């Protein structure tokens, strides 16, 4: 087994997912079976092969720095689950 339930718990914390015990068990089994399938990649010799992160060879796409009308405050906040005095409201992060 590549991944233990404890590691699954750690990955879930990194991903900000609070899994139930049942989800943790299920993901451990399923992720292990998927990772096992991935093992075959190790057979391929990739020495000297550059990684490909993009299909189109483009970099540093620039545009003129011209001001344009942004979303209004009302539009930006219209979907917020919680707001207060024109701000997004979140739980306290500073004691």
């Amino acid at each position, binding site marked *: 087994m590549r*991944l233990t339930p404890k590691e*699954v718990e750690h*990955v*879930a*914390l*990194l*991903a*900000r*997912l*609070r*899994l*139930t015990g049942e*989800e943790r068990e299920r*993901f451990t089994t*399923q*992720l292990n*079976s*998927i990772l096992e*399938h*991935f093992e*075959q*990649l*190790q057979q*391929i010799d*990739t020495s000297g*092969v*550059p*990684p*490909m*992160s*993009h*299909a*189109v060879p*483009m970099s540093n*796409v620039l*545009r003129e720095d011209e001001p344009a009308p942004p*979303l209004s405050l009302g*539009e*930006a906040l*219209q*979907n*917020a*689950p*919680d707001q207060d005095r024109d701000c*997004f409201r*979140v*739980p*306290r*992060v500073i004691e």
Partner: protein
Amino acid sequence: MSAEGKLNELTAHELSGLLGTGQVSAREVLAAVYGRIDEIESEMHAYVLLTREVAEQQATEIDERRARKEKMPPLAGVPLALKDIYCTKGIETTCCSKILKGFVPPYDADVVERCRRNGLVFVGKTNMDEFAMGSSTENSAFGVTRNPWNLDRVPGGSSGGSAAAVASSEAVVAMGTDTGGSIRQPASFCGVVGLKPTYGRVSRYGVIAFASSLDQVGPIAKDVRDCALMMNVLAGHDARDSTSIDAPVPDYTQALVGDLRGLRIGLVKEFMQYQGRSVDEDVSLAINGALARFGELGAECEEVSLPHLNYSIPVYYIIAPAEASSNLARYDGVQYGHRTPGADADIVEMYSRTRDEGFGAEVKRRIMLGTYALSAGYYDAYYLKASQVRTLIRRDFDQAFERFDVLVGATSPTVAFRLGEKTDDPLAMYLSDVCTIPVNMGGLPGMSIPCGFSADGMPIGLQLVGKPLAEEVLLRAAYAFEQSTDCHQRRARPVSEADGRRSAVARAGHDSA
């Protein structure tokens, strides 16, 4: 054409002619589409939202402008279904996730703007796998869509609602997105035409992101000409998407010449068998039949092997979840979407409970997989390795395109499978994308067109793949093939196996069902 109820079965180019000469109005066409929806949507569930008021307003405006003799774009008045992944200003957009329930975008996606400018009429938002992660539309948070050829089967995914809507004439054309096959595979399962353009050909601005280096926008249509007309609407540079290609946009309908002399077509061995496992026999027969037809039409056909395509599944299921785990970090219950109530004591607790409640199982699985593949100590073994093999896949394609203009093969190894058949086995579900995924890896244009039917009456798709920006070559090959068969003229009549009947197939305009 006299009966209003049949207008919805016509193609966009047929309707364009009738609308242009004033023989029918946009409102009549729209009424025919909604008539069909009223009749079968309760069984199909292709849509998650119908936008009747918006559509009626758009259709009325088109009719009024025509009455004033304004010159209108070719598709003005044609009813369009939009996958629920496109931001539509003032219209709820959920990506079929609980976490975005109630989200009303303050702006339109670039392609939505283009569709509005071209007078397409927005019928509604279609069902999809949550965040486009899936191959059957069963991962939607808002119910399953059925295959119009057989209600016990899946429509494919993730653009299953769009493909089902077009196939059942609940829309005339539709928009999908394709990250690993999500336009082509459902088009194949539903017997319609789907095109995934070259990465960068169509703007992704305002399209909810899944895997940004793979996602691409494209049309689903009843035939190849409709697909070309839609490409005329969609393609073009957009400064708001930094990966958008600034290249001239041709008139894609010019490619529809019906002549294949001199075209070199390669049948990709790995599109017919993956790691030694062959595609279904019915599929194989249909594809080989299509290849023979291409030969009769004047193309030179040969088999070719692209060996690294045998690794596409692991490469894709490392790269796509890695990108997704990053893209989906934005759903944190702060700026938009769902927030779990009563979790306000601690911010990490609020994020984690919100995300656990808001995301479905497959989305969580992929976020977990991607987070793991990118985490310290595993990055080289998974993400870096996969990105290197991605280079080898693209090189295989580049080499093949030195010898061939178009590569072909199966779109999917099987016809549409049964609802529930693969939901408990994620890996089996992943394998249904084996023929389409490599094309996204390479950023190449790919297309699926109907090429036959299985013994049990389900449509089979032929996949065509081209060089970067060679959509015209694909359309040319697809059009010549299509004109030599009647596959694209058959229309689905939704029935269930439980009725003890096979899917009834009838030619458009010649049926009484």
